[in-house]
């Protein structure tokens, strides 16, 4: 597969830079749907810029772990932009399994940061996010295994290949089941509505939010940016692996533009769907995530069973 290094780097930077806009768009869409004016989508950048200009607070008992965590979390999510195809082949082919672990590393340090000074609400956030994590991670892992079994490879570009020939790869039972499972897991992992309402600031209902409660200034900016990166990553993950995908192999301007527009349209579509979902659903209790997770795992296992059964019946690699 041809790889164009400057373009791949540009893609990664685009991923990092555009992530706050996605959060802004989500807020704006929600406001518009509720017939409010709402802040413009670009407001998130202004907020981040303001935070970056401020001084970071230094709570009692803070060590280097507290201060370094936001950087590490941001670094982990940032790396994913260079290892996952948006509209171009990525800079490195990470192997899908590695994605789970990189996300895990980010979650680990995010939780460490939340607990770093022993604040009461930090523990609340850490224990809840880590509980969600131990539910999400196996399910996410299994989704990735299902994808790998379907494609006979854990290489992300090989796994994505069926999605690139449009009707055949998409309208397949296993893909549709996995799409649903990935949507559930993405919503849980990004802490969107039934799991957590990120628009509120009520300490007792916080999960992910509480992890960054002690942070301020640039640290807080990094933490919020990292959350935006996570959201964008899960949108991209769902959009690229389970929806029809168009990847520009060659740096030809027309193909590149087409792939880019296709990607943006897909993300916008998912954002509209997410907004609609969040408007229709109330926030659920933490305990309910267990049921969600079970549904996702069940769907994934069905998809795996379908893939394997097809292989066994045809006595040869599927597709």
């Amino acid at each position: 597969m041809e790889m164009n290094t400057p373009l791949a780097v540009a893609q990664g930077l685009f991923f990092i830079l555009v992530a706050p806009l996605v959060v802004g768009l989500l807020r704006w869409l929600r406001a518009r749907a509720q017939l409010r004016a709402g802040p413009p989508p670009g407001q998130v950048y202004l907020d981040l810029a303001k935070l970056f200009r401020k001084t970071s607070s230094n709570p009692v008992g803070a060590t280097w772990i507290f201060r370094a965590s936001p950087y590490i979390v941001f670094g982990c999510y940032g790396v994913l932009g260079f290892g996952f195809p948006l509209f171009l082949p990525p800079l490195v082919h990470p192997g899908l399994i590695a994605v789970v672990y990189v996300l895990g590393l980010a979650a680990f340090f995010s939780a460490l940061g939340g607990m770093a000074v022993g604040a009461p609400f930090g523990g609340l956030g850490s224990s809840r996010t880590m509980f969600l994590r131990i539910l999400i991670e196996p399910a996410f892992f299994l989704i990735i295994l299902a994808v790998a079994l379907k494609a006979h490879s854990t290489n992300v570009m090989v796994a994505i290949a069926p999605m690139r020939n449009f009707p055949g790869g998409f309208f397949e039972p296993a893909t549709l089941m996995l799409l649903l499972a990935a949507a559930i897991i993405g919503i849980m992992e990004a802490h969107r509505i039934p799991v957590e309402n990120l628009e509120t600031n009520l300490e007792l209902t916080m999960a992910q939010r509480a992890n960054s409660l002690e942070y301020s200034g640039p640290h807080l900016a990094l933490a919020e940016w990292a959350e935006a990166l996570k959201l964008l990553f899960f949108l991209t993950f769902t959009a690229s692996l389970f929806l029809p995908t168009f990847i520009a192999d060659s740096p030809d301007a027309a193909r590149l533009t087409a792939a880019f527009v296709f990607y943006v349209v897909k993300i916008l579509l998912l954002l509209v769907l997410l907004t609609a979902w969040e408007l229709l659903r109330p926030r659920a209790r933490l305990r309910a995530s267990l049921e969600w997770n079970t549904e996702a795992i069940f769907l994934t296992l069905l998809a795996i069973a379908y893939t394997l059964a097809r292989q066994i019946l045809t006595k040869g690699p599927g597709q």
Partner: protein
Amino acid sequence: MRMLDLGAGLATIALAWLAGFGVPLLIHRRSRLATAWSLECASLGGITGMVLGAGALVGGGAQHLTILSGGRVPSVRNFPALDLDVYLDPLAGLFLLLISFFAVIISIYSFSFLQKEPDRVKIAAIYNLYLLSLVFVVVANNVFFFLLFWELMTLTSAYLVLYRHNKLADAGKSEGTDYEDAVTSPQVYLVASHFSTVLIAVALLGLAAYAQQAHYTNVFDFRTLKEFAAASAQSPALPLDWIFVVALVGLGIKAGMVPFHFWLPYAHPSSPANIHAMMSGVMIKIAVYAMLRLFFEFLQPVGWWWGVLLVALASLTTLVGVLYAIFNSNLKTALAYHSIENIGIILVGIGTALIFRWPGFPAASGNLLATLALIAALYHLVNHAVFKGLLFLCTGAIEQLTKTVDMEKLGGLALHFPWTTALFIAGALAIAGFPPFNGFVSEWFVVQSLLTGLDQTAISFQLFAQPLTLLLALVLLANAFALTAFCFLKVVVTVFLGQPGRLAEPEQWLKRDVPWAMRGVLLLLAGMCVVLGLFPSQVINLFTPITARLTGSAEAVPVVSMGWGLQLSLPPPLEAWGDLEIIPMVGIGLLVALGAYTLRGVTRRQPSPAAPQAIWSCGSPILPAQSQWTEAALSFWVGHTFGAMLGQAWSRMFSRRPMVGQKAFLRDEMRLSDDAAAVEVFRRALNRGLDILVTFSETFGSEAQNKDIRRYLTYIFVVILLAFVILIPS
């Protein structure tokens, strides 16, 4: 590449370690000198062993040597069963290297670690003998001497397990559950180990008897057994299944495989931390070594269900190990449970390899898949030794700094001991399997081999059990990996972060971080975690001769190409499966992140905040030490999700007090109490089993031995009858 002659090398090792054992017993009054002598001998032997092991591993060939011929003993002339034979092939070389490396670094660590230890002479002396037994188990080439050194290994380590008992007795605390635990732990250890030795002996002797039946001579020699296996692989005639089961149980006990693991978290933590590192990091892997020898070299052909059984048990082991680790508040016990978990991961690799060694599986992809799975197992074995060594030695450091390893009494160590904290976190990241550390690569390998295996078993579908087991293993491992990350998050948070807890006595803690001898060893191990994570290909390619021998495939297949990260270069039909270029990428990402963090401190335009501010508590003042989250509170949701698997252990942890109400979430009321700790399902099962056995034998025994002469005469008659029945046909 052979830098050292086998005989000379082993003689040096044996002499050094015997001197390290013997001399201190003579000069034990001058304990400082005696300890130093012991540890120096241990390092010297270790360095020799490293050279020898590395030579065998890199050289690729096998060396054989008869050190002491049984024929030279006058009364047992020409009795080859008593030949002290040694055999060093790449597999033995790898283990020799591992043991010797840890012998060296643990000796260096022990120079400072044992400084204030009253029992230091005894520990250091026995440590030498213990090392000797480990090395000779690995190189022994004879059933008799293998079992002899196996037994020596058990006895020397049992002495070291007595440590906690001795310490409590010396302190005059010879009462209470703590002391009872300390008394019973070496007993449990000895019973379990001897039971395992018996089973291993039965398996090996059964195999030797089969070889004898097939008219082989010198059947106690491992090489004969290997020849016998090669012959029986061609024309299988004998039932080997029972040998497999007996050996699996025997070695499973020693390795800590569920459901035979119960003794391990009970016995290992009773030894001093440096020995604990050796036991949990290296010794339990000797059982894995024996499994590799037995299942891949001596027992052929492989039955279809062997691998299936092993994978099923091993994947269960990972989950059970990590769950019990989460619900344990003693750091050493929790780490011992994690050893069980990691042994499970290693055994999953070995079991997967066994599945594909089944002759019914298409040989072309079978050999390749077995190779992949073996590499996963071997690499995880090495990695686990490194990161677990790091974690255990860090725990030793914590014990020395704070006089406790009870997580409830720790907290806020990062404020006092930055080095230990950073190094422990490195070990935690490695064991949780995060890139760019080494645990990630081997866990990735295990998953990759399971996944390719699942794919191939489905393609060349023969048995339903095979894909089903591999899928089960994947599901259980996925859970275990997530839970390991959680467990170590909990450990790092409770031990190192926040403020010293409510039960902590920070005024008794040492004022300074550990001395440089210990710190250097920890740094070396942490560095190895990173190097083994960033350059896995270089190490994995060393395994090629081992896997070629174990899978019996003529040509060695290098499965990875060299360079940064990892790229599988598999021949067809597996060429499409995965690569791993992201490891260096994550490394770079982390470096950039940390660089940004450091630079921000340097180039900051604003003055750094002068005084630390209070933490956010909704506006009302709080006492941080009292109001921070405890480990029990942190793991509540895990208990909620997985509690059913743990029997009463978890529910007692929480249900003894109401969750709501002002007293909830406090440390002492939430801890896993001693009686709750005693209810681990498997130990209860064992106790129940023993109970039944004792009752049965009591009833039966008193009935059978009723001192009636007629009954005894009947016994004699039955025995003679049986002897006729057995002997006459032959």
